[in-house]
């Protein structure tokens, strides 16, 4: 073949390596099973059907060929002809198909001759070997693999060529944004006030109905996502706006949760306060802890807050985990029977019976989320939020402009701590049980991940980030052991494609007509 290049062969080998790797850790089957479950909406898929196994194989070849053909279009280089594109894709498919089929032929032969491959390769149970061979004889199997990889690669190359030659933006995100910006309906909605209000009402109704639509599992996930969104909003104030790094945000979350739990649970303290009072006390105590952490560092420059909070979080966790303090904190056993909010009477009189607990609590969380959202929004687009951002940009200059940086630093930490405390109290009340294991370092990492993925300082970003960090892993549950691998790959891919986060912070436009009158300016500038 005249039109082939060594690069295409290399890409074919790469495809084969990926396929072999996926097969050896049994991930092809897991991905196939997930796909099968999604498409056939079967309750559970014990072993993947050959069809979906094959689709995963073809998809890998598809993506490699797609990205390779796309990369051929470089500014300044002549555009490749369609035949050339197909030729290159064919090579990718052929090479990878031959290699992966050879591997499976080898494995099948060994297996047939009684070699216990499982003793060498943990994942290669006889069942898995059979699945990978599509349950066929070796010659048929080789044919199937070749057909799959070649078809996948050709399709990938073809689509890449179509996209490139029709001048569509290759970046799907940019394409989507452009489509949204140019879409007449969306433009109409944005411009027209009445339509906009109607859309907002529709969204509100949808949000309001959501707890009734969702399954109990969905309700529990949404609750967790919203709690993390609240956590993200709080951390955003400190990290995204005021620019101070925090490594131990879980400390404030734990303090809110434990304060609430200790005040409402029958054991160990037996106080059994009502929800509102315990909640308010939890806010106050976590705010106080913000003061304790914030004051010592308020005059320091640099990432001291990161270290101080990290230490503080460890101290809190050791305290609640210690046996010595078990009489006060529940110790390693944690705290049971944490109080829940009582439903106000009007709900029952309105719908005839009490609302199911989980639905009611989801509403409670939604309300707190909305309140936090409002507060954070107001702060961010005010003198206070601007001062925080100025500090993040250049602390020295901000201070020389008159920003009381020490005050604003502590203020950010306190407000962030109160919000985290609220999230913690909600979490404790929702779970009715908490223990030291709920407040590990991973919570701090996750809350940082929420704002990094969503976009530093961005309010909608916190919600999206929480959904991705806490919601997506749940959606990926079918992948079982590979869940975290796929999740990690997703995160890395996202940070490469959108390094500023999915919804980066948006500057609110500020308009005012200048008076064009020096006399007015003189008056305004009177010292």
């Amino acid at each position, binding site marked *: 073949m005249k039109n082939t290049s060594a690069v295409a062969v290399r890409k074919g080998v790469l495809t084969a390596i990926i396929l072999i790797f996926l097969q050896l850790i049994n991930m092809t089957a897991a991905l196939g099973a997930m796909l099968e479950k999604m498409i056939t909406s079967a309750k559970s898929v014990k072993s993947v059907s050959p069809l979906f196994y094959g689709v995963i194989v073809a998809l890998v070849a598809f993506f490699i060929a797609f990205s390779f053909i796309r990369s051929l279009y470089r500014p300044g280089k002549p555009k490749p002809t369609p035949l050339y594109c197909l030729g290159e894709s064919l090579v990718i498919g052929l090479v990878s198909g031959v290699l992966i089929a050879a591997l499976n032929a080898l494995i099948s032969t060994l297996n047939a001759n009684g070699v216990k491959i499982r003793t060498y390769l943990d994942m290669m149970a006889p069942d898995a070997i059979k699945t990978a061979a599509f349950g066929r004889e070796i010659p048929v199997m080789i044919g199937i693999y070749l057909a799959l990889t070649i078809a996948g690669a050709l399709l990938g190359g073809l689509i890449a060529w179509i996209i490139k030659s029709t001048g569509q933006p290759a970046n799907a995100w940019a394409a989507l944004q452009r489509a949204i910006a140019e879409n007449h309906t969306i433009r109409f909605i944005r411009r027209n006030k009445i339509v906009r209000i109607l859309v907002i009402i529709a969204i509100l109704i949808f949000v309001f109905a959501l707890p009734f639509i969702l399954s109990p599992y969905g309700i529990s996930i949404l609750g967790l996502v919203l709690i993390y969104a609240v956590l993200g909003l709080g951390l955003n104030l400190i990290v995204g706006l005021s620019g101070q790094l925090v490594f131990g945000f879980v400390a404030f979350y734990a303090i809110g949760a434990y304060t609430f739990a200790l005040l409402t649970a029958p054991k160990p303290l037996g106080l059994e306060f009502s929800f509102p009072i315990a909640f308010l006390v939890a806010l106050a105590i976590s705010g106080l802890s913000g003061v304790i952490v914030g004051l010592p560092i308020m005059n320091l420059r640099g990432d001291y807050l990161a270290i101080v909070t990290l230490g503080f979080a460890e101290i809190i966790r050791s305290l609640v985990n210690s046996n010595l303090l078990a009489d006060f904190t529940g110790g390693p056993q944690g705290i049971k029977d944490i109080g829940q909010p009582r439903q106000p009477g009007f709900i029952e009189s309105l719908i005839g019976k009490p609302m199911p607990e989980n639905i009611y609590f989801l509403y409670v969380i939604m309300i707190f989320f909305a309140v936090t959202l409002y507060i954070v929004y107001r702060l961010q687009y005010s*003198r206070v*939020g*601007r001062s925080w951002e100025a500090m993040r*940009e250049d602390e020295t*200059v901000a201070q*020389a402009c*008159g920003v009381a940086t020490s005050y604003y630093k502590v203020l950010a930490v306190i407000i962030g701590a109160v919000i985290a405390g609220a999230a913690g109290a909600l979490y404790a009340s929702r779970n009715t049980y908490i223990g030291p294991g709920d407040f590990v370092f991973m919570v701090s990492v996750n809350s940082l991940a929420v704002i990094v993925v969503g976009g530093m300082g961005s309010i909608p970003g916190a919600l999206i980030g929480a959904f991705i960090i806490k919601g997506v892993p749940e959606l990926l549950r079918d992948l079982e052991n590979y869940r975290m691998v796929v999740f990690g790959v997703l995160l890395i891919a996202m940070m490469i494609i959108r390094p500023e986060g999915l919804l980066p912070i948006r*500057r609110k436009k500020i308009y005012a007509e200048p008076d*064009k009158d020096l006399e007015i*300016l003189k008056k305004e500038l009177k010292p």
Partner: protein
Amino acid sequence: MTEKTPKRTQHILETEDIIINFGGLTAVNNVNVKVPYQSIFSIIGPNGAGKTTFFNCISGFYKIDSGTVFFQGRPINGIPTDEVANLGISRTYQNIRLFSSMSVIENILIGQQPRLRSNSVDAIFQTYRNRREEKQSIQKAANLLDFVGLSGYANELSRNLPYGAQRRLEIARALGNNPHLLLLDEPCAGMNPHESDAMIELINTLRSELKITIILIEHDMKVVMNISDHIVVLDHGEKIAEGTPEVIRNDQRVIEAYLGSETETLVEKYARRKNQGKQAE
């Protein structure tokens, strides 16, 4: 000492024997200046003479080792920079320091910090005070932008502005504070003659219309000689001469310090240096 001094002395700023050391280097050595109200007071001197350091001493970035800085008769050394700003001293920077990922108008709103009163509670509950103050400060920011000729740029990110515009934005931000005293650190650096002229015009207006006292560090001798009431020459951290532009132009010590036995004047030397700089670019 402070109690007896009248609030409004003859000089807006006085320094008394201020000294600052960095390790073995004395960057500012026994410098005394007296800056009259509503004057344009220039500081010149070769690179590394200690001019910027002198500004940093006034605005509180550096703690001076000895001496006193009086602002309107009150000693101000040792107080934090945000309180210096509250007193009505604003400044710009030799290497532009804007809040680069904030919008142009937001930069000016930050500049107004010392004059704002609403706090986080006002912001959350959108109190009357907050709404009124927000409206007024935005209007003032728009007027300031218009004043420095940037009214079309309000919602651009400040880092996206052209160089000259960034310099003017820094001045507008400094004005947001309603300053009595404005410290300008090489505002014409890197500007073409046309832009320099506009800057001179702007600085003159600041003094004549807005009654602001200006201390100016500038290398461009045309600018300095043109608009200064009074000039101080620093060299190796020490004040080697001061007086009106006429006096400085003919001061034997200045000429010697700068030029040794050569015959060219300070003005020519600066002109040459500037040309060299241009060629280097």
